[in-house]
C-alpha cells in the first residue's frame, strides 16, 4: 500500500458519464455488490444440523437488515422507493427457496453457502430465459437477496458501515438496497462500472449533492480499498493512483468546490445580483423527498421545477388525487412564499424506468409527457385538480412538458379550466395557478413568440432541448461525443426563447442541468436568463460565481458565442475568455478541455 502512495503505481485515467457534479480527492472504498466466490465443502453427518441452524440464523439476520433498510428507505426516499424491499423480504421468507436450500444441505451435505448458490442459480437460470425484458430484469432482485444471504453467512457485517471521512465508493453497480444501506453522510463520491443517468443511484447522488461518475467499465476490478483516487465529475473522469502533482492541483480545485458547496450564510440568502446590479433568481429542482432538505439549506428561492412523475412509484402506480394533493401541499409549504412549479407527469420513454410504454420503437419521440396526459385525460384531470386544490393553501404553478404545438397548450388549458369549474361547483377551495410551457422541443423554440402569448411563463429544459435539437440520445455512450451543450444551435435556441418571453413580458426559467454548472450559468445569464433552477446542492456554487461577475462581460461573451460556427469553437472561446477574465473563478480544470490538434 505504501508503495502506491509513494507513486510507484502509475496514474491511470478512466472516462465515464458524470451523473452528479463535483470534484473529490480521496481514498477508495470498494463495495462488493457482484457475485461472491462460493466454495463447496462436504459436511459430516453430525454437522448437518449445525449447518441448518447457521443457515436459519443467517436468514434471520438478513431479514432484520432488510427491515432496517426498508424503514430507512421509506424515511429518506419515500414509500415509492421502499416497496421493492417488501418483495425482498418475501423472498427471504419464501418456503420454496428455504426448503430447497435446506434439502440441499441435508441431502447433499453441502455447506450453506454452496446450497444457497446452487438453489439460487437454478432460479436465476429460469429467470434468464424469460422473454419479457422488464420481468427478466427482476432477476436482479433475487441476486440482491442472495448476496445479502451470503454476506450474512460469512459473518461479515455489510462492509460499507465502516465509511471513513473521505471514502470514495467504488463498486460495479449500486443496487437500491446497497444504496439505502450506505451511510451517505460519509460518502464523498461514488464511481461505478455500470449505471446511467436515470439509475436509482444517480438520482440519489444528485439529490444529496454527492459527485458521481458511472460507466467506468473495469474500475472496480483495478481499484483496491485505500488507493488514492480523484473523482472529477465536472469532466466525467476518474484518476486512480494520481501523482503527487495531480493530487495537489485537484486538491486546490476540490477545496474551492467544497467551499462553494458550503451552505450560505445569512447574507447569502438575500437577493443575488451581478457586480453591475442585474438581479438573478436561483430556484431549486426537486424530485425525491430526500432532496427537500436542500431547498432551504442552500437558500433556494422556491422550487422552479418539481418533477411530479416521481410520485408514481418507480414501477408505475398512479397516485390518487388525494395522494397527489398531499404531496403538492408539502411541496408548496417547502417552497414558501416563493412558490413551486409542478411539472405535469413527464411520463413515457426513459422516465418509466427504462420502459417504453407499449414497446414503442422510439420512446423519446413517442407518447410521453403532455401527449400522454392528453391521451389519458383522466391522468391530467386528477393532477390538475390536485394542484388547484393545493394552490388554495400555497403558491403553486404548473408547467406542461414537451410542448411541440400550440394546440397542446390549448387542449390542456381547456381541460384544466373544466376541472377548475368542476371544483368550484363541488365547493372546493382552489387557488390561483399559472400555466407555463416547457420549451424543450425545437418546434417550440420556433413558435416561441406565439406560445408566449398563450402561457404565463416558459421553462427551458436544456437537457431535452440539447437531445432533441442535436438528435443525440443522452443515455447512449456511443454518441456521447455529439451531446454538446455549447453547440451554437443550442445557444441560439436559448437566446431566442428568452427573447420571446421578454417581448411578451413573461418570465423564462432555465431549469436544465446547464444552469447548475457555473460556466454554463454565466453564459445563460449572458444570454439574458434571470431565473435559473437547479439541484439544490449546486446553488451556493452558482451563486458565488454570479455574484462575482459583471453581467456586461457575460453578455459580451454570450454574444460572441452566438457568432461561432461549431461547439468546438464555442468551447475554445469560453476557455479563453473565462480564464482571461475570471482566472480566480474558473481555474483551468473547470473549463472545457482544450481540443487536441492532430
Amino acid at each position, binding site marked *: 500500500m505504501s508503495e502506491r502512495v509513494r507513486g510507484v503505481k502509475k496514474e491511470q485515467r478512466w472516462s465515464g458519464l458524470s451523473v452528479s457534479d463535483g470534484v473529490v480527492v480521496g481514498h477508495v472504498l470498494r463495495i462488493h455488490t457482484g457475485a461472491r466466490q462460493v466454495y463447496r465443502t462436504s459436511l459430516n453427518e453430525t454437522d448437518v444440523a449445525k449447518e441448518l441452524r447457521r443457515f436459519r440464523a443467517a436468514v434471520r439476520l438478513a431479514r432484520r437488515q432488510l427491515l432496517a433498510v426498508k424503514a430507512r428507505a421509506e424515511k429518506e426516499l419515500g414509500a415509492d422507493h421502499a416497496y*421493492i424491499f*417488501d418483495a425482498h423480504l*418475501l423472498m427471504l421468507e*419464501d418456503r*420454496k427457496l428455504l426448503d430447497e436450500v435446506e434439502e440441499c444441505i441435508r441431502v447433499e451435505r453441502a455447506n450453506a453457502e454452496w446450497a444457497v448458490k446452487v438453489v439460487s442459480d437454478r432460479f436465476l437460470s429460469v429467470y434468464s430465459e424469460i422473454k419479457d425484458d422488464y420481468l427478466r430484469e*427482476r432477476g436482479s432482485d*433475487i441476486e440482491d437477496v442472495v448476496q445479502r444471504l451470503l454476506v450474512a453467512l460469512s459473518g461479515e457485517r455489510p462492509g460499507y458501515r465502516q465509511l471513513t471521512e473521505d471514502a470514495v465508493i467504488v463498486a460495479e453497480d449500486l443496487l437500491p438496497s446497497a444504496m439505502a444501506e450506505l451511510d451517505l453522510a460519509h460518502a464523498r463520491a461514488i464511481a461505478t462500472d455500470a449505471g446511467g443517468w436515470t439509475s436509482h443511484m444517480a438520482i440519489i447522488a444528485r439529490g444529496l449533492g454527492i459527485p458521481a461518475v458511472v460507466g467506468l467499465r473495469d474500475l472496480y476490478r483495478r481499484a483496491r480499498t485505500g488507493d488514492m483516487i480523484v473523482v472529477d465529475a465536472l469532466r466525467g473522469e476518474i484518476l486512480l493512483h494520481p501523482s503527487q502533482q495531480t493530487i495537489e492541483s485537484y486538491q486546490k480545485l476540490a477545496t474551492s468546490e467544497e467551499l462553494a458547496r458550503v451552505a450560505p450564510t445569512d447574507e447569502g440568502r438575500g437577493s443575488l445580483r451581478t457586480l453591475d446590479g442585474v438581479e438573478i433568481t436561483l430556484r431549486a429542482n426537486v424530485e425525491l423527498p430526500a432532496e427537500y432538505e436542500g431547498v432551504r439549506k442552500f437558500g433556494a428561492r422556491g422550487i422552479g421545477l418539481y418533477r411530479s412523475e416521481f410520485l408514481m412509484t418507480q*414501477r408505475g*402506480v398512479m397516485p390518487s388525487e388525494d395522494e397527489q394533493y398531499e404531496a403538492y401541499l408539502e411541496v408548496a409549504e417547502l417552497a414558501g412564499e416563493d412558490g413551486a412549479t409542478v411539472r405535469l407527469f413527464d411520463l413515457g420513454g426513459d422516465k418509466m424506468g427504462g420502459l417504453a410504454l407499449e414497446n414503442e420503437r422510439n420512446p423519446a419521440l413517442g407518447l410521453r409527457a403532455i401527449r400522454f396526459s392528453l391521451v389519458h385525460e383522466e391522468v391530467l384531470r386528477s393532477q390538475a385538480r390536485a394542484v388547484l386544490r393545493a394552490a388554495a393553501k400555497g403558491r403553486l404553478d404548473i408547467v406542461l412538458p414537451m410542448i411541440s404545438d400550440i394546440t397542446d397548450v390549448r387542449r390542456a388549458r381547456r381541460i384544466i379550466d373544466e376541472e377548475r369549474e368542476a371544483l368550484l361547483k363541488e365547493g372546493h377551495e382552489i387557488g390561483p395557478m399559472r400555466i407555463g410551457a416547457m420549451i424543450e422541443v425545437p418546434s417550440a423554440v420556433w413558435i416561441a413568440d406565439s406560445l408566449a402569448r398563450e402561457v404565463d411563463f416558459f421553462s427551458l429544459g436544456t437537457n431535452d432541448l440539447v437531445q432533441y435539437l442535436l438528435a443525440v440520445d443522452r443515455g447512449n455512450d456511443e454518441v456521447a461525443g455529439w451531446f454538446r451543450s455549447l453547440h451554437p444551435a443550442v445557444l441560439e435556441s436559448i437566446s431566442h426563447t428568452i427573447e420571446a418571453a421578454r417581448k411578451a413580458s413573461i418570465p423564462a426559467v432555465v431549469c436544465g442541468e446547464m444552469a447548475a454548472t457555473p460556466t454554463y450559468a454565466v453564459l445563460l445569464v449572458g444570454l439574458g436568463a434571470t431565473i435559473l433552477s437547479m439541484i439544490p446542492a449546486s446553488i451556493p456554487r452558482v451563486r458565488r460565481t454570479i455574484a462575482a461577475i459583471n453581467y456586461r462581460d457575460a453578455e459580451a461573451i454570450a454574444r460572441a458565442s452566438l457568432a461561432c460556427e461549431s461547439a468546438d469553437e464555442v468551447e475554445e472561446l469560453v476557455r479563453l475568455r473565462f480564464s482571461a477574465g475570471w482566472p480566480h473563478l474558473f481555474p483551468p480544470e473547470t473549463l472545457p478541455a482544450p481540443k487536441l490538434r492532430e
Partner: protein
Amino acid sequence: MVEERVRIINRLGLHARAAAQLVKTANGYQSMLRLERLDGSATADAKSILSVLMLAASRGTELLLAADGADEKEAVRALCELFACGFGEAEP
C-alpha cells in the same frame, strides 16, 4: 376446490411489486392456492414469490387460479379482486 380464470391487466405484468402484493394476500389464507398458465406451460404456488415471479406473466397473460381448502372461496375472491384492479396500478 374452486377455480377461476384471471387475466393480467396491469402494464408491467406480475413484477416484483405486484407479485409481493399477491403473495402477501395469498398468505392470509389457509387454502392451497395455485396459479397456472392457461396453456399449461407453467404453474406457481401463489404463496411463494419466487414461484409467482417465475410465471413471467406479462400483461395480457391469462391464468387459472385454483384454491383448495377451508377458505377457498374467500381466497379466490380476494385474489381475483387484485387481478381485476391491476394491483392498483395506473392503467395506461
